[in-house]
């Protein structure tokens, strides 16, 4: 056979998003001009998305190891030991650009992709989460995007039968031209039955299963279709289309096959499809792979090697099987009505060799393709610090309770019920704490254990001070898990930023990573996987730096969980942690006063650790009826959220030493509100640890009262709180 040849011009190189230097490196590795298919493979493997070329030097800073980490970054998903021979497997991933272009399919395929990353490793997915960011509510595209994204996430997750249990949604004009859709999946597996992507066994068959390959998603990010195609119609990139029904079959078929002794290695075909899956499997195994592309199940006639390798058709998996297991595997795939094709075998050549129509279409040394991918230590400009804003320098609202209602009924603190009621959050029957609280709690089937799950980020803090914002994103997630009584164990990160070639954006990135890494270390909350999404900007307008943290914690006894709803009258509400009335970069300033100023609250990580560990201890000892972390909107918003969840009012007293609005809406970190029957014991135990604890007042009644005389009916707050989304969506 001969190597197929197409002349590679500088224009074709540029269309593939490779710089001249990068192309020189390709020529070095190949020792000749690459074929078009080879160029396409280098292009996707060296894309920012697959190679992490701008971020890799920084990602090394994350702590990734702790005794309970079974698998850190580098596999399809991270794995932690949760005891009793069980492992939790999870990861978060972005689908930002496709969701902006086509919100339903973009969001749906985002969910599908992250589900595959998790069940590829042998886990049954048990929970989905998502972190969404949209532009201003009154931006003309926002309503359409919200409606499509939410329907897409629901449409996919509901059909595959995995509950969507938690998430966060934020609105800010910075996302007008670039929304964020980050999806996370958590799965469970036996700790001794984890599947990896390491190809092994020379001569073992390489098997393709799942849906057929079509022309969808080919090279969407880098290719301008018309210029270099002989048949431009055939190479037009299109948004991928998800089929959750096929995904459901694929989950069941893979789990059934995994119960057999059949699989050597397995990798889903996600971004860069067959290319990245075959390259990663052979690279990890130190082997080569030969593929006969004529054997790939295709949806359309006349697909070229280039198209087959770069297609991002959904719901596909690549496996290396034990040779004696192929008939069993074929039978299982046939039962589930999925395509099964032996398309190649593992070799000892260290090369990825692709043939089609009797020609060699590509012959690339795998190891240099992966290890010599470009790495950029891009110049960065640290974000200049902001002045600290004293509480007295901020504007007080005319009426505290009216400001509270505006916040609770505003875009960012209103109820997300409109969203999560479109997600099946109860399927599997294990959802013990539903969306709408801090972390959601999902039981580990057939045990008394549960997982606590949360996704968090406060982008306005990251914008004002990336290091503190990075710390805070990790700390808030850790706090949310703690507030249910669970022990936070590990996290996955989704780093959403603008163009890394701009030093100020790279400065945001670097600062956030440094802050996050510090927090992970002090909180023993390692990073076990994640995703970087750069170039999130439109017409030079970057998004706010948004490093989303998705955390998993474990609760040994599900009956010890606490919700945010206090559920009874006459309980004492206690604020744990120090309130200095910190309003810099607060939700209050941004949403009520329309001001974006002041340094964000500093995060004292040792104090976070000490306070959180103490709160968890109080919960474990049964002293706490309800617990809520204090974050956006401060202590008054936290108490109001607890009251709304409880449908029981509260009567609380402010701290006379602070301006009223600063006490109410200040966002000092390392704080919680708890409701207890044993206030004296709680306060004594915290005092012994030098942790400030202040009795705020009591639960009861149908109103929310602050100090003497500031009262509002809970019903009127609830009406504003529940009204925002239906009004926005025109219902």
């Amino acid at each position, binding site marked *: 056979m001969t190597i197929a040849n197409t002349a590679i011009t500088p224009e074709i190189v540029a269309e593939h998003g490779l710089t001249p230097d990068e192309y020189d490196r390709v020529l070095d590795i190949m020792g000749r001009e690459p074929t078009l298919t080879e160029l396409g493979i280098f292009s996707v493997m060296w894309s920012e998305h697959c190679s992490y070329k701008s971020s890799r030097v920084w990602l090394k800073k994350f702590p990734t190891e702790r005794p309970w980490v079974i698998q850190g970054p580098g596999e399809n998903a991270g794995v932690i030991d949760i005891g009793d021979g069980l492992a939790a497997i999870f990861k978060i991933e972005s689908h930002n650009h496709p969701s902006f272009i086509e919100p339903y399919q973009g969001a749906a395929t985002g969910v599908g992709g992250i589900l595959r990353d998790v069940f590829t490793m042998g886990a049954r997915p048990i929970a989905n989460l998502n972190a969404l960011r949209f532009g201003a509510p009154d931006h003309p595209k926002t309503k359409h995007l919200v409606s499509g994204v939410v329907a897409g996430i629901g449409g996919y997750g*509901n059909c595959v039968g995995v509950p969507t249990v938690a998430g966060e949604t934020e609105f800010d004009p910075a996302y007008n031209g670039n929304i964020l859709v980050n999806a996370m999946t958590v799965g469970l597996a036996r700790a001794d039955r984890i599947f990896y992507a390491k190809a092994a066994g020379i001569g073992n068959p390489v098997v393709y299963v799942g849906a057929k390959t079509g022309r969808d998603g080919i090279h969407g990010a880098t290719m301008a279709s018309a210029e270099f195609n002989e048949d431009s119609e055939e190479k037009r990139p299109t948004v991928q289309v998800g089929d959750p029904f096929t995904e*459901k079959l694929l989950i069941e078929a893979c789990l059934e096959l995994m119960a057999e002794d059949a699989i050597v290695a397995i990798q889903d075909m996600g971004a860069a499809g067959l290319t990245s899956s075959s390259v990663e499997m052979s690279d990890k195994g130190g082997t080569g792979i030969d593929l006969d592309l004529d054997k790939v199940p295709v949806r359309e006639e006349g697909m070229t090697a280039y198209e087959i390798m770069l297609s991002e058709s959904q719901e596909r998996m690549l496996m290396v099987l034990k040779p004696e297991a192929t008939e069993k595997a074929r039978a299982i795939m046939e039962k589930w009505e999925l395509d099964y094709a032996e398309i190649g075998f593992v070799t000892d050549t260290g090369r990825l060799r692709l043939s089609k129509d009797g020609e060699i279409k590509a012959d690339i040394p795998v190891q240099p393709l992966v290890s010599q991918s470009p790495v950029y230590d891009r110049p960065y400009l640290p974000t200049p610090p902001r002045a600290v804003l004293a509480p007295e320098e901020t504007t007080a609202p005319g009426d505290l309770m009216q400001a509270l209602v505006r916040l609770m009924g505003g875009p960012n603190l209103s109820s997300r019920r409109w969203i999560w009621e*479109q997600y099946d959050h109860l399927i599997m029957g294990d959802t013990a704490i539903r969306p709408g609280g801090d972390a959601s709690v999902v039981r580990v089937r057939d045990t008394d254990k549960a997982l606590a799950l949360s996704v968090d980020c406060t982008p306005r803090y990251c914008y004002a001070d990336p290091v503190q914002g990075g710390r805070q994103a990790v700390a808030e997630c850790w706090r949310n898990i703690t507030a249910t009584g669970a022990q936070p164990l590990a996290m996955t990160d989704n780093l959403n930023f603008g163009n890394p070639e701009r030093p100020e954006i790279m400065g945001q990135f670097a600062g956030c990573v440094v802050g996050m890494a510090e927090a992970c270390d002090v909180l023993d909350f390692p990073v076990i996987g994640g995703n970087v999404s750069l170039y999130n900007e439109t017409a030079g307008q970057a998004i706010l730096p948004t490093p989303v943290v998705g955390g998993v914690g474990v609760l040994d006894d599900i009956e010890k969980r606490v919700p945010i709803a206090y559920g009874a009258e006459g309980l004492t509400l206690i604020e744990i942690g120090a309130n200095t009335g910190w309003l810099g970069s607060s939700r209050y300033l941004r949403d009520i006063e329309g001001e974006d100023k002041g340094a964000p609250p500093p995060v004292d990580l040792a104090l976070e650790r000490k306070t959180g560990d103490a709160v968890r201890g109080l919960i474990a000892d049964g002293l706490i009826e309800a617990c809520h972390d204090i974050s956006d909107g401060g202590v008054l918003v936290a108490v109001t959220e607890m009251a709304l969840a409880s449908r029981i009012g509260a009567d609380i007293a402010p701290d006379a030493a602070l301006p009223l609005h600063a006490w109410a809406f200040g966002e000092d970190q390392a704080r919680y509100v708890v409701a207890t029957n044993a206030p004296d014991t709680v306060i004594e135990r915290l005092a012994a640890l030098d942790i400030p604890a202040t009795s705020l007042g009591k639960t009861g009644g149908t109103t929310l009262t602050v100090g003497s005389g500031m009262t509002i009916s809970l019903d009127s707050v609830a009406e504003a709180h529940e009204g925002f989304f239906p009004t926005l969506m025109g219902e």
Partner: protein
Amino acid sequence: MKSSILVFPGTNRERDVAHALVRAGSAEPAYVWHHDTSLPPSDLIVVPGGFAHGDYLRCGAMAARSPIMPAVIEAAAKGVPILGICNGFQVLCESGLLPGALMRNAALKFVCRDVTLEVATSDSPFTHSLAKGHRMTVPVAHHDGNYFADPETLKALEDGDRVAFRYVDNPNGSINDIAGILSENRRVLGMMPHPENATDPKIGRIDGQGLFTAIATALEGAAA
């Protein structure tokens, strides 16, 4: 009690209902694949929730024509109790074992929330131990749960005391607030809500357990 749970490609609540049955004292249920043409000996057949065949075409339409369905219809004719939940209810309507149809929710959106149901009749193996008027809070999770029947059918259902459950706060626009209906011989129940997801005290939802306990006692009584 021996139960069989049908599994179509896309069924996704089969394990949920199996757990509820086991909690109510059933032996481990048998999962019956849609391609099978016969059922194991069954005191109860369950058609569980999900998206059989992706709900492509029309919810339940393809599943209702599965190879297993003639055996189900035959069992129904012999009086074997059949419980269809959510997608299972849709399958039973499509297969002709129950009248009427389930249309897209009035709000046109998927809805997952707790609803309060009122038991509308105690006269069935599924509700015999639940008092008429008894209220229970169980979740719904569906996109197409808006029950509809023509006036004649509806009259037959109402006159025949064949409405099993009604919504207190109708989440989907169902006619006459109907959440579940019985066949003419009262031994086939189709319902949209998910009692199986409210059967576990450790999770904090238990109102659905009564239905499964009722089934278990009815069938044990019949066997004894």
